[in-house]
């Protein structure tokens, strides 16, 4: 692979000025935001869409005959349509609005798995998973007597495919797997893995929190059964997310929560649940969050997911080449297919100390376990420092990171 030039990485960096938060100084330095894997920043188009909604159109959805309520419903349901086509779902009935990836996965654990799991059944995950794709399964296993089993990863941070396959026995009812690792950036070869699982009759949930913001995702092409993601990782508001699921599976699942909007008829003898997707959307939803989410999808599509992918890939390569040149810096996570996330250590400086020193220089990175403690345990580390890129980053950001790391080396020399 030829080393990319800094300029290549700047193709779409013109969009940077659309993100107001980036235009500020932190500790006397221009902000360098390298923490998009934790939460992405929002373009003015998203912030304004939310504010405009609140200033002009707000009302509760679905249940009103008046004009504002109708407008709010159109905007809210319009966001569902945008999300439906964004991930190429086959029907809007399959787009369940949730509060985020975590809730999406809990919904599947409780409504899909809990009723079906027997003692002795297994749920299969990998060592790469985020806590959100571990703990919900631990809880449902405890509730049902099922067992959680885990496929190992290698030293590059890739799932050991042979071992994963070997674990796919008759006992396994569901495979929960990340599309892209938030801690190491590894892109899993999902097409292959899902095909294997489905062949063995295993349902597959994909945690797509770190994939949807950075690449084209087509849930039908992937062949999985459930796909979960969050608005705030993809330049949208917090408190909003999606569970996509196959209509037939969702249809057969009991509701997750009870309340308004998820029922057709309530009386004390029997209650008739609403149709999809509403069966899973009890209570007043995050209307403004979903409207902002829809605006985020519009924005991403206007830039183009392929452009975003190429831009971030080039910038990541540039960052890796620069980091490698730093004395005492060790990359953690060197998968052959890697997204725009890079974990590393610098000598024996604790990540928390490193984070503070970088912050002093305006550079925002995440440090610690990244909600993926098993990954840390696998590498025998208390945590890592992680620089993660978004569409708005450019090579200057990487250069500033490198300068700041050199300074840290001096402090701890």
């Amino acid at each position, binding site marked *: 692979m030829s080393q990319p030039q800094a300029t290549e990485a700047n193709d779409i960096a013109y969009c940077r000025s659309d993100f107001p938060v980036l235009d500020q100084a932190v500790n006397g330095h221009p902000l360098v935001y390298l923490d998009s894997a934790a939460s992405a920043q929002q373009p003015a188009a998203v912030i304004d869409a939310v504010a405009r909604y609140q200033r002009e159109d707000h009302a509760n959805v679905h249940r009103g005959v008046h004009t504002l309520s109708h407008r709010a419903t159109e905007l809210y349901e319009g966001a569902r349509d945008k999300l439906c086509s964004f991930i190429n779902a086959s029907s809007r009935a399959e787009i369940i609005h949730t509060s985020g990836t975590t809730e999406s996965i809990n919904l599947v654990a409780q409504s899909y798995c809990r009723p079906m799991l027997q003692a002795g059944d297994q749920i299969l995950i990998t060592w790469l998973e985020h806590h959100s794709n571990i703990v919900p399964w631990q809880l449902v296993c405890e509730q049902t007597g099922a067992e959680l089993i885990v496929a190992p990863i290698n030293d590059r941070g890739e799932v050991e495919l042979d071992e994963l396959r070997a674990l796919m026995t008759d006992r396994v009812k569901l495979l929960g797997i990340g599309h892209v690792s938030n801690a190491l950036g590894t892109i899993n070869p999902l097409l292959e893995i899902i095909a294997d699982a489905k062949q063995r009759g295993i349902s597959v949930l994909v945690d797509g929190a770190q994939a949807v913001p950075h690449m084209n995702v087509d849930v039908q092409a992937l062949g999985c059964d459930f796909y979960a993601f969050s608005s705030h990782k993809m330049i949208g508001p917090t408190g909003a997310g999606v569970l996509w699921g196959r209509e037939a599976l969702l249809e057969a699942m009991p509701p997750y929560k009870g309340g308004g909007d998820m029922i057709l008829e309530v009386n004390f003898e029997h209650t008739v649940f609403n149709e999809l997707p509403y069966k899973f959307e009890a209570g007043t939803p995050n209307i403004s969050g979903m409207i902002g989410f829809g605006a985020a999808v519009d924005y991403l599509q206007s830039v183009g997911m392929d452009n975003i992918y190429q831009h971030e890939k080039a910038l990541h390569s540039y960052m890796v080449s620069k980091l490698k040149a730093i004395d005492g810096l060790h990359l953690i996570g060197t998968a052959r297919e890697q997204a725009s996330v890079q974990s590393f250590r610098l000598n024996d400086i604790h990540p928390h*100390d490193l984070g503070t020193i970088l912050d002093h220089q305006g550079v925002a990175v995440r*440090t610690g376990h990244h909600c993926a403690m098993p990954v840390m345990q696998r590498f025998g580390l208390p945590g890592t420092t992680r620089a993660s890129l978004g569409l708005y980053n450019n090579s200057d950001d990487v250069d500033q990171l490198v300068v700041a790391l050199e300074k840290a080396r001096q402090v701890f020399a």
Partner: protein
Amino acid sequence: MNVIANNDELQQLYRETILDHARKPRNFRQLAKATHTAEGINPLCGDKLRLYLVVDADQTVIEAGFEGSGCAISMASASLLTETVPNLSVAEADACFVSVTGRLTEQTVDSELATKIDLSKLKALDGVRAHPSRVKCATLAWHTLHAALIHSQTSAKTE
């Protein structure tokens, strides 16, 4: 290389004393004769330490030791703690907890007991005040001390 603003602040945080204790933590060992022990966790950065105290029949702390891993601030703070509490009474040691955590969180805490104890060495920790996100690292060992002294079975944490 660009100019580092707030360079002073950074040097206040990572003073020589801190770096020295972090690199070579004192009393970094399990104490077989420990009468009191507690574990402290700071989930924010994964700091984790276990503190051991030997307290005699007079309720005097004879010895202190710790094990664990964490950032420079939390390790240095624990190391400094193990040098501070020996020869103090249990009540005095607990007063140190109140005094140190109070000082670092900028609450003024008045404790007669603590004023009698020489805590000047702990001034090295004062740099964290300018770093609110790091205060928990500095206070972890002291919370753990408090937990150990009151024979708490649960682990201390600072988040």
